[in-house]
């Protein structure tokens, strides 16, 4: 059976090994496709009914489009089991037109990492890991400026500077919503006051030199590792990376806007079955093992630090993640468990997500580089309205 995804083969080796030990008559062969080409490669190969892909990784917000194109096998028979095994947001993200198309494997959230050495140098107090003491963006920006004045190069940096995944919570917190409304989730809503407030604030962090321009998404964590950044918003995967670096870090909840709601990103990857597959029974077995089976789901997180989607697996996993970070990560398990259930805001489920992500990504990039916020958001809204007309 063939399994295709964007991760390094070492990431899935433990789950494949565990599955094969349990099912000696099935062998799983994994192929990696570079992350940036995954979607286009899948579109082409699935579109051509390529039966050499049995199971593939599904970027959760793209699920509805893949399902609408007929690129996913209906897994609705596993609905009840899945609903019982994973958090609500991780269940509903796999539904499209009331049918279930994939099983959730990973989950995610975002955390505020801070550089203790840099904060000490400026006499700034550490933010607490306790979700009830969550700081506001306004506070963080003020503190970050102070740390910068004391000699740290950059005050604040978001890991995926131009990604909707990471910027959605800014707009949500400012009361702007996800940016998509309407019955079918095909109406753009990115020009409301909440979105404008959030994006103006974001634009200012670059204009004031608090955040660096010219550093792309995922080039950012090495900057924090090398001690050049005071506050860094990143994912649980950074816990593994930072614990290997020689920066003295701590972790706190992702901030919110003063007077606004608390919102954090969520969602990650599900796995689905190619309808053209000739090994559907084996593929389904593999999916159930990787998602619904606690040990199987845990095995997917053995090599990469990422939160498992399965609730029972999460419970076992979080203390391990906290231990990995040592003293730096005190309170991390409680914090992530809280974010998963209390503040997680999933990306909207819509067949127009791919265009949305792409057009907004360009808008974020321009806003970051100094485009006037109102005009740029209006332009993006217009582009999206045009793009969605053709759906």
């Amino acid at each position, binding site marked *: 059976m063939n399994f295709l995804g964007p991760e*390094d083969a070492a990431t899935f080796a433990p789950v494949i090994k565990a599955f094969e030990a349990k099912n000696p008559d099935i062998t799983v062969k994994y192929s990696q496709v*570079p992350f940036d*080409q995954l979607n286009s490669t899948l579109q082409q190969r699935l579109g051509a009914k390529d039966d050499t892909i049995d199971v593939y990784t599904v970027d959760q917000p793209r699920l509805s489009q893949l399902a609408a194109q007929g690129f996913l096998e209906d897994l609705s028979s596993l609905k009840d089991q899945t609903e019982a095994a994973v958090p609500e947001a991780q269940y509903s993200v796999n539904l499209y037109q009331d049918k279930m198309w994939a099983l959730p494997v990973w989950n995610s959230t975002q955390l505020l990492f801070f550089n203790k050495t840099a904060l000490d140098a400026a006499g700034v107090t550490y933010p607490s890991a306790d979700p009830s003491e969550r700081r506001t963006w306004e506070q963080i920006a003020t503190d970050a400026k102070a740390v910068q004045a004391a000699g740290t190069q950059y005050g604040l940096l978001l890991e995926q500077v131009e990604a909707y995944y990471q910027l959605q919570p800014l707009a949500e917190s400012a009361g702007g919503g996800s940016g998509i409304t309407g019955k079918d989730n095909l109406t753009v809503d990115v020009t409301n006051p909440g979105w404008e407030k959030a994006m103006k604030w974001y634009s200012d962090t670059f204009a004031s030199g608090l955040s660096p321009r010219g550093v792309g998404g995922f080039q950012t964590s090495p900057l924090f590792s090398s001690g050049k950044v005071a506050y860094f918003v990143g994912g649980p995967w950074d816990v593994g990376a930072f614990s290997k670096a*020689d920066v003295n870090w701590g972790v706190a909840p992702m901030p919110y806007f003063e007077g606004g709601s608390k919102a954090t990103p969520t969602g990650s990857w599900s796995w689905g079955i190619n309808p053209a597959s000739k090994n559907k029974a084996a593929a389904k077995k593999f999916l159930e093992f990787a998602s619904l089976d606690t040990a199987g789901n845990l095995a997917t997180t053995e090599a990469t630090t990422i939160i498992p989607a399965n609730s029972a697996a999460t419970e076992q996993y979080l203390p391990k993640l906290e231990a990995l970070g040592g003293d730096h990560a005190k309170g991390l398990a409680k914090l992530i468990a809280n974010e998963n259930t209390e503040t997680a805001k999933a990306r909207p489920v819509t067949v127009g997500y791919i265009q949305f992500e792409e057009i907004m990504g360009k808008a974020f990039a321009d806003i970051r580089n100094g485009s006037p916020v109102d005009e740029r958001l209006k332009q993006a809204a217009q582009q999206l309205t045009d793009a969605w007309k053709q759906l």
Partner: protein
Amino acid sequence: MSSVTRTSISKRRTLGYIGLSALGACIGLLFLLPLWWTFVNSLRAGGDTFRFLDPLQWETFFTLTPSLDNYAALLSSDLGLATWNSIFVSTVTVIIGLAICSMAAFALAAIPFKGSGVVFIVVVVSFLIPFDAIAIPLADLFRDWNLQNTYTGLILPGLGNGMAIFLLRTFFLAIPQDLVEAGRLDGLGWWGIFRRIYLPLSVPSLIGAGLTLFLFQWQSYVWPLLNGTDAQHILGPIALSNLQGQFNVDYGVMFAGSIVLTVIPLAIIIGFQRYFIQSVTTTGLK
């Protein structure tokens, strides 16, 4: 008086010459700089890649503690196998491709036949269309022919290269017809003329065309992805791209991989440089 003028002119000339050379050297170094920076960072731990970037300092471009750890890390990745696969695929493409392209070019340059002009136009147009534009329908055909995930599937699209045919044809046209006549008198057929007269005279342009074929395969990226290559058939550029994880990028290892994949064609091009330039400069000479 006149000798003074002459000295000042020659002095000015020397100065101009030195100035131009210095300028040329500086521009050359600017081109080298990114590659050098990549190389230096391949000798540093991934976490240190951006440490010395801003503000620019001597450590941006030099390191006192070079380490080969990143290169050692490559050994445990797919890049080793991928490099061999790339070398294999490129070499086979060059050998078979040169045979096909040179015969095609010979037919177009030396053998008069009806419609040769049309065939030539088709060849020229074929290399003006970007390969990526035809890759998707081509991949569907290859799937129907069961060539998916095979070396044959990887090699085939690189064999008939319009650019190589164009280069060779232009060179062949410059070969004097008298030589062909002489060969004919000595009893050579078309094959003999091609084999004994055209090929030996065209070594530089064959090398130029060979490099074109080689680079096409060496840089091949979209095609192996569309062709569903697995870990056994993986090629260099894909393995390099795979080093970039979804959540974390180790730039040290990535740069080490880039250096490995750059050094191989660089060595080949430098080795054949003389011929390559010759082939371009003599193209079209009569």
